[in-house]
């Protein structure tokens, strides 16, 4: 299936903002992307969680009570695997994911969200659903200073504008 990024004419690779020393953050758009929402059906929360935990080759991220985002697995395969334990909604075209890394990534994200991003409170593998710049955002910590963040596709351009503006003071690299 053709997957076209809504930001293909907006995001330009390069070095921006404060230019003393190494860039504080590195930003990129995760594309193409397969992102599927899985919502456990009534009374099936445990079964759905177990089947997701047993999955190989895909990343499962918490996205609310008995709800998950699965990255890197196609919706049809998930539907087959989970059967009637969960509802499967393909969000690959519905959401846009950004990767944010670098020593200033926490400082950058903290400008937009009330979530406590300290490594003790928000360790690798943890996800949060929150609002950033008035946009609903799903945030996951993927490494020491690495995050993945997804927003609704329609908000992606204005969110990108906000994100890059906030990153100016740290200096940022777009890949």
């Amino acid at each position: 299936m053709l997957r076209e990024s809504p930001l293909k004419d907006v995001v330009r690779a390069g070095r921006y903002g404060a230019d003393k020393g190494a860039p504080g953050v590195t930003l990129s758009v995760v594309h193409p992307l397969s992102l599927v929402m899985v919502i456990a059906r009534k009374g099936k929360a445990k079964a759905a969680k177990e089947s997701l935990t047993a999955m190989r080759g895909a990343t499962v991220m918490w996205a609310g009570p008995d709800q998950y985002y699965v990255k890197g697995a196609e919706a049809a395969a998930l539907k087959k695997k989970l059967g009637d334990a969960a509802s499967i909604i393909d969000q690959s075209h519905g959401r846009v994911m950004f990767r944010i890394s670098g020593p200033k990534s926490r400082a950058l994200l903290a400008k937009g969200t009330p979530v406590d991003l300290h490594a003790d409170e928000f360790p690798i593998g943890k996800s949060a659903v929150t609002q950033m710049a008035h946009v609903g955002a799903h945030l996951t910590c993927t490494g020491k200073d690495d995050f993945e963040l997804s927003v609704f596709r329609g908000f992606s351009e204005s969110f990108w504008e906000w994100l890059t503006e906030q990153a100016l003071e740290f200096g940022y690299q777009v890949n």
Partner: protein
Amino acid sequence: MGPGFRRDDDLGSNLIITCPHCGARPVEEFTFLGDAKPQRPTSNDPSSMEQWFDYVYLRDNPKGRIDEFAHHSGGCRAWLVVTRNTETHEVHGTVTAKDYAVRAKKSGR
């Protein structure tokens, strides 16, 4: 401004609600529906119209503790019940609306 009057910026900004799913979040992430106490009548019989009137229109306006429905609209989108103090804005606790309903059923309300 009379005694006891608090400016707007003293009100919302200090309200931290601990969502059972997401942890501590500011009040801006929540949408409030109102008092969680009224129970929807189970009958549609005309004789129950008085109960319906109470359920739809009549609300207590307590000074002190109140249980209120809150939707974590800027987060996990779960329905919660927040117990807060209308006088001091202190938040006493938060449970999911589901747990609240189970508890209400058990206590025979």
